[in-house]
Each structure stands twice: as C-alpha cells, then as structure tokens.
C-alpha cells in the first residue's frame, strides 16, 4: 500500500471532481426538462406523438451510453452540413458532446420515471380540481406536476446516482473528469488499488450525499 501516492493524488482527484460535478449538474438540469417534455408527450392521446416519445426512451434506454457518446462525438462531425453550421461550435467540443449525450440519456430515463408518476395520480384529484372550476392548465401545473415530482423522488434519486457514475464515460472522449484523472494516475504509476480507493472513495462520498439529500426531500414533501 503506497500511502504517499494516495495522499499526493488526492488533491488532483479532487480537482477533477469539479469537472465531474459540472458534467453531472448541467446534464441533470437539461435532462430534467427533456424528461418532463417526453413524459407529457407520452401521455398525449395522438398515437404518433405517443409512439415517437416511446421510441426515444426505448432507443436511449436500450443502448449503452458509450455508443451514444461516440455517435455524437465521433459520428456527427462527419455530416458536412453540420460542420459548416453554427452548431459546430458546440459539437466540436468534447465537453458539450458529453453533456448532450448524458442529457439525452438521463432524459429518457427521467421521462419514464415521470410518466409512471403521472399515471399513478388518482383521477379523483384531477376531477376534484375540475369540479372546482379550475382550468386544466392550472390543474396540470399546480396539482399534477407537484404530485408527480413527489412520487418520483426515490426513483429519480437512483437516476442521479446512475448519472453520476455515467459521467465517468466522459473520460473516453478525452475529458479529464474524476475517472479520467484516476486512469491517468493509474497508467503512470501502475498502482491501481491505491488510486481506486481514493477515487472510489470520492464517488462513494458523493453517492452518500445524494442519497441523503433525496431522503431529506422525501421526508420534507411527505404529507
């Protein structure tokens, strides 16, 4: 056990954790909007809209995240019209490619979580709102969305942890996130166990915080 290496690599890994947290938070915020949008589309009665939303979540949940990142990072650059468009400013950056892939991926899982939360809302609650003369739009924003958010908290907490682990794939497109730096230190020192303990410890600490935060929110929103 090389304690010296563990101590000297800790600040480097902690610096890389900032990259990991940035990737995580931006993708989660964007992914939440995508998820909400597609959950609403899933509940649409139009069969084409419905199928489209289902197809999106099926494809993104049925393929590995690694493939999704590679298609966006390596694949999209091949399209000539895209290279000459303003989008190229974003798509040539591995950072944004990773975020797009993560957001689309977590969006697919989030849409499933929110959809099932919407579907478990008792119809009586919506009817109660209607008979009070409240418009369906206000019922949706003031009643259905808050209930759905509370219902989906435990499942969404798991999704945040899965996404935290997912951000490690950013290292495959040259980003130096926590896993990327850990791999670099391992491959230069050949001390995999020491680095794994430190990097893994940082990940576990973040998982622990997320887990407790969600538990706290669940308690807060309990009725």
């Amino acid at each position, binding site marked *: 056990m090389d304690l010296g290496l563990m101590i000297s690599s800790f600040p480097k890994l902690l610096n890389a954790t900032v990259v990991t947290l940035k990737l995580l938070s931006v993708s989660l915020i964007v992914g939440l909007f995508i998820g909400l949008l597609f959950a609403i589309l899933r509940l649409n009665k139009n069969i084409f809209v419905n199928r489209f939303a289902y197809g999106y979540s099926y494809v993104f949940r049925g393929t590995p995240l690694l493939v999704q990142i590679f*298609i966006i990072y390596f694949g999209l650059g*091949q399209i000539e019209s895209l290279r000459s468009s303003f989008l190229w400013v974003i798509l040539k950056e591995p950072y944004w490619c990773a975020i797009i892939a993560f957001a689309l991926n977590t969006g697919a899982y989030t849409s499933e979580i929110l959809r099932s939360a919407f579907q478990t809302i008792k119809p009586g609650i919506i009817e109660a709102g209607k008979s009070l003369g409240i418009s369906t739009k206000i019922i949706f924003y003031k009643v259905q969305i808050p209930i759905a958010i509370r219902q989906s908290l435990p499942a969404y907490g798991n999704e945040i942890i899965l996404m935290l682990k997912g951000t490690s794939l950013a290292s495959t497109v040259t980003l130096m996130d926590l896993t990327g730096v850990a*791999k670099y230190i391992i491959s230069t020192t050949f001390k995999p166990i020491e680095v794994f303990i430190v990097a893994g410890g940082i*990940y576990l600490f973040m998982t622990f915080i997320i887990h407790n935060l969600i538990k706290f929110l669940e308690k807060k929103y309990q009725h």
Partner: protein
Amino acid sequence: MELLAFGDTGWGDELFRATLMTIAVSITAMLIGFSFAAIFTPLKLSKYKSLNIVGNIYTTVIRGVPELLVIYLFFFGGSGAIMYVASIFGYNEYIEINAFVTGSFAIGIISGAYSTEVFRGAIQSIDKGQFEAAKILGLSKFSQFYKIILPQMLRLAIPNLSNVWQITLKDTSLISVTGLVEIMRQSYIAAGSTRDPLFFYSFAAVLYLLLTFLSMKLINKLEVKYSRGH
C-alpha cells in the same frame, strides 16, 4: 450496405463475431455475478451483524463506484494480483490474463452486486410461513432451500433479474477500453479504418437494441414458465 458485406470487402463477419463476443461476455459475467450473489445474499440476510456489514460493503461500494473505474482496477491490477499470488507459490514469471477473463470478471462483480440485491429482495418477500412450513416438514436444510425457497425466489426474482441482464449487457460495451473485440471495439476499428464513425456506431446501437429486444422476449417466456399457478 457494402460496408457490411461478409468476407474481405466488408465488416459484416467481423461485426457478427463481435456480437457473439458481446453475448459470450454478458452471459459469463452474469454467471460470475450469480456466484457472487450466491455468496453475498446469505451474508446480507445472516443474523450476524458482522456478516451483514461484509455483504453491505460489497453492494454499496460496487453500486456507488463507476463501472469504468472498476474495469480499470481489474485491467491494470488483475495481472499484478495474480502474479502476487503466484509468487507466494514460488512462480515468478510474468503472467498476463486475457481481456476476456478480466472483462467478464470486472463486469461479473458489478452484475453480482445488482443480483445480490434482487435475490435479497426476493427472499425477503417470500411469506415467513413458507420457511416455517419447510422446517416443520422435517426437510434437511438443503432441501428446505432447494425445494421450497429457491423456486419461489426465482419466480419473484426473474422480472428484476431481467433488468440486471440489461445493465450487464450494456456494461459490456465498457470492456472495449481493454481491447477485447466486442461490438464497441469492432465498431471503433471499423470506424477508424473506413472513416465512417457515424455509420458504424449507429449500427452498433442497432445491434445492442436488437440484443436487448430479443433477450426481453426470451425472458418474458421464462417469466410465464416460472409463474405457473400464479
């Protein structure tokens, strides 16, 4: 389409073999995972606190750390660990383990943590009376488990195990970083030599979708078989 031709002109046969490799790694990893689950599920359910802790450490650490990090640990540390054990027995030559073994083992340990949770949940949701009835019938400890608990546990576990299978199947794509030629690695090679990454990575996505779709069909059949009478 000619990019996918079989033989020397296209990548069809290479990708076909890579798909078989993905299936082989997934199944091996799933089975290794089951053996881990067979060890750690009893630990998690044991009445001894210290054994619980060992079981909990396994599932918490593995499920809280990125798969890629676990793979790097095995990829860079696997040979070293084996050589260390071998040196105790007086063998000091360099040993290299092949990518298939390292990869299946790394993914297997991850898959095992998820399987452990599934089996634990399944056993805990079996009616307590079943355990007592098995005991009262005077069955041996082995047949109590094998004849009464196991069949019920499997029925309860199959729906969640199908999730574990999907996770395992998708995780195998990460082994491509160790150089094992499965779907992702083969697509990477093909994309590099044809300069057509969009096509090959999209095709890889289609292959994965096909694998998840077909395995779901198969698992649904198993589910029907094991839930006879329910």
